[in-house]
Structure formats: C-alpha cells, structure tokens
C-alpha cells in the first residue's frame, strides 16, 4: 500500500479547482459587460453624431424607449408568449419523440439501415425551404410554427442520438457482456451514459435552428409572435421596434444556450476538465 496517496477530504484539490473556476466565470462576466457597454456606447454616440440615419439603424436609447412603451402598455406580451409557446411545444414534443426514437434506431441495426438514408436526407435539407408549404397546409396560426420547430429539432436530435449510440465504445460493452449484464442493464449502464453528451450536443444545435424557424415562419405569415412583430413594424419603418424584437430574440437565445450549458455540466461531472 505504499503507492496509494492518502485519501483527500472534501477540501482537497477539487475544492481549490472550484474556486479557480468561479474566479474565471466572474472575469468572463466582467469583460463581457465591458464589451457590451462599449458597443452600445459607440452605437449611441455615432447615432447622436449623425454618422448614420437613425431611422434606418435606430439607436440604443430609441430601442430602450420602445421597450419601455411596449412592455408597460403590454402590447408586446401576446407576441412574446405566442413565440415562446410555439418554440416550447415544438421543442419538447421533438425531444420526447426524438430521443427514444434515436436510441431505438441506433440499437437495432436493421431499423437503422431501413430509415437512415431517409433520415439523413431530411436532416440535411434546410427546413426553412418547406416553411411556405407548412403554412399552406397548417395555416398561419401557431400550428405551422410548432410543426416547423418540431421538424428542425426532431431531426437533429434523432441524428445525434443515433450517432451517440453508434459511438458506444466496444471495450465498455465488452465489460457488460463479460459480467453477464442483461440487455436492459447494458442499455442503462453503458449505452445511455455514453449517449448523453451526443444528445446534448444535438439539443444545443437544435435550439439555434428552432429559434430561426420560429422567426422565419412568423415573418412569412402570422398574426402574432416576435417574428410577426418585427415584420409588422418593419413595414412601418419603425426600426426601433424591429431592433427591440431582434434584441429579445437574442436574449432568449442566450438564456437557452446557458440553460443547455448548465444541463451539460450537470451530466458531465465524470468528465475530466479539458481546458
């Protein structure tokens, strides 16, 4: 037993690592804020100095005024809630069907052969191309957007889940086999944990695409939603409100990305820090 180092307690090397990471996060936030303030400051100054037409590119203060007006009057809420609902419904349904399906397809070779050509074909096709067709079929209401979000999310989740199942290491399944694990136990203890990182990557890619899907479909034909809001005020040359819509979408994208990042961290405690 001369070789094993003494067991470290809870305040061992991991504790100090966590502190270091926290410092890194604070620093990131600080510099990010400085960058943001600088950017808006330059934008505002340039607009006030008349370097470009405010009616075309707006300015931070005009966007802020529009935000205050539309949030206090409540005019923007229906649009926000419509877009968020479209996104949430399409997204959740796509995950609920896509992840199990991806696992099944990945597990069974013949099912894989049967569907993968079709699946990869659809996956590679830009779904925005079929947006007009979906609107024709499902109408200009929320349904068409939900369908588009579903399609955009579903295929990337299925494809990445399948890839995850295929990437399960031979040496890991061999351990399960050697100790006589049942199929179900092998699935739970080997296939699922190895697939999680792939599924999360699929989800991360899908969030961005689905958000684009919502906006594109709403700008094409809708009666509510942030995309509609942008399109509507665009025709009136109200660029402050167009920009407000863009900022809201960006914020939503950031929040969503952060959420996925947190989930990834939560699932990957067993991974060595590779930074």
């Amino acid at each position, binding site marked *: 037993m001369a070789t094993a180092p003494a067991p470290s307690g809870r305040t061992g090397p991991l504790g100090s690592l966590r502190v270091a990471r926290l410092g890194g996060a604070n620093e990131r936030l600080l510099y990010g804020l400085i960058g943001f303030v600088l950017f808006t400051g330059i934008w505002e100054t340039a607009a006030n100095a008349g370097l470009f037409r405010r009616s075309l590119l707006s300015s931070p203060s005009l966007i802020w005024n529009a935000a205050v007006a539309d949030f206090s009057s409540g005019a923007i809420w229906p649009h926000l809630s419509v877009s968020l609902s479209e996104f949430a419904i399409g997204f959740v349904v796509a995950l609920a069907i896509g992840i199990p399906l991806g696992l099944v397809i990945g597990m069974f070779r013949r099912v894989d052969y049967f569907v993968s050509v079709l699946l990869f074909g659809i996956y590679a096709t830009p779904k925005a191309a079929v947006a007009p067709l979906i609107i024709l079929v499902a109408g200009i209401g929320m349904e068409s957007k939900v369908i588009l979000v579903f399609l955009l999310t579903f295929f990337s989740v299925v494809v990445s889940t399948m890839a995850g199942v295929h990437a399960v290491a031979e040496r890991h399944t061999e351990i399960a086999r050697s100790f*006589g*694990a049942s199929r179900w*136990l092998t699935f739970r*203890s080997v296939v699922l*944990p190895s697939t999680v990182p792939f599924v999360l990557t699929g989800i991360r890619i899908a969030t961005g695409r689905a958000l684009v899907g919502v906006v594109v479909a709403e700008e094409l034909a809708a009666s509510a939603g942030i995309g509609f809001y942008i399109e509507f005020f665009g025709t009136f040359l109200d660029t402050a409100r167009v920009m407000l819509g863009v900022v809201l979408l960006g914020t939503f994208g950031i929040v969503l990305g952060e959420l996925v990042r947190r989930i990834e961290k939560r699932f990957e405690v067993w*991974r*060595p820090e590779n930074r």
Partner: protein
Amino acid sequence: MVDTEFALSARGVRMEYRDRSSDVSLVAIERMDLDVADGEFVSLLGPSGCGKSTFLKIVNGLLLSTAGDIRVRSLGKAREDAMVFQDAALFPWFSVLDNVAYGLVCAGVSRAEARSRAMPFIDLVGLSGFEGKYPYQLSGGMQQRANLARALTVDAAILLMDEPFASLDAQTREAMQAELLRIWSAAKKTVIFVTHQIDEAVYLSDRVIVMSARPGRVLADIRVELPRPRSLDVKRTPLFATYEEQISKLIASQHQHLGLGSQRDEA
C-alpha cells in the same frame, strides 16, 4: 487425467478468424491444452498476437472457439470466472464504488446491497477513501486496483487477468505485482494471468506457460519453485535469473526458428 481438484481444464482449443476483406482464415490459436489446479497462479506468456488474450476471452465466454473443450469448475463459488481487463476498463460515468459493484449488479443483486458488498474489496485492494471518486481522478495503478476489485467482488473461482499492468510505468507495475500477490493470497483465487513480460510471469506464478508466436500453441510449461511469500527482492536472486534465462532462450529459439532473430534485434 484424473485430477479431482482442477479449476480449469482445456483440451484442443483452436481459434480461427476469417478476415472479412481478404476472406483468408487466420489461425490465432493452433491448439491449447491446459490444466489449472484450484488455487494455482498460472501465467500465459508469449509475444503479441500469440492468442493468449484470445484464450482468456474464450474462457470468459466473450469469444466462441472454433474447436475444443473447456471445463471450468465453480468450486462452490458464485461464478466460474471473472475478467480483469486491460487498461481503461472502468466506466468513466460511474464512481469507483459503482464500478466495483457493477459485476454484482449484473448478477441481479440490488444496487444498495452490491455497494455494501463491494466495500470490503475496495479496502482489500487499498482504495479506501476513493470509493466516491470517478476514474479520471485516479492514477493508472489505482484504476487497475478498482478493475481488480470489481472482478474479486463477484466471487468467482478463477480470475482471468489480461495484461492488467501493461500500461503502467515500471515502478507502479512492480508495486502492483507485489500487491497482486498479497491480494491473491488473501483472496485465495485461481489466477490465469496473461503477460508478455518474462520477469512479471516468473515473479507472480506457480507455473509459466510459454506460448509460441502466431499460431499460438504451448511451447513449455515451467514450474516456478521460488518460495512464497515472495517479496520483490526475489527478482534479484540467482534462481530467478535462471528461470528468466530459460524462458528467454525458449522465446529466442522461436525467433530463430521463424528466421526472425537477427531482424528483431536490429528493429
């Protein structure tokens, strides 16, 4: 052979692979006959590709041999055999405790009970205090301790060890060899140990089975009469050197026989 206390008996085991691209069949093991007595420590020693790991996998049931017969007796133990795999054979997403308990969970034992039954073996291999760690937080030697503990926990008659120390540095490897002997005498197991290192085989074993290069077969079955318990100092005794020399001559004669002797040395 009327040996009543053999743990493993293999007769005429043969293994052929069909190479998919060229459709040529490759003989990995030409013929293996082996008897291992209960409680014996036997090493299979040979160059890479001699089929020694393949033989272990056949015994373990991971591979099906082309021909031959293997009988393994469980001798009142819960299982016949358990494998100690080569490097990186832990699940990175499980803690040390769950990795060690895994074999029992596979056997249908509840997770809670498997964990409590795994603890004594974590102590035995010297990993107390590390049961909550993930594999990436352990050194290579400690990972192999966990790997060994997992195989011990399932209470098998025979431990099948597939070059378990091959990826360790020389010092850790020696320490682990001594550790293995300590654990072996405490756990009273039959061990079949695959290695390509002569000194490792001589130091650990009651018998060293020297195998030929592919296609594998038994070249010699050498009984190592070094007294036990063996400390690492035994490696510096004349008798130990005699065994090493005898075995390396056997292996060298193989190379000459194949016309590989001088080329190997230059390369």
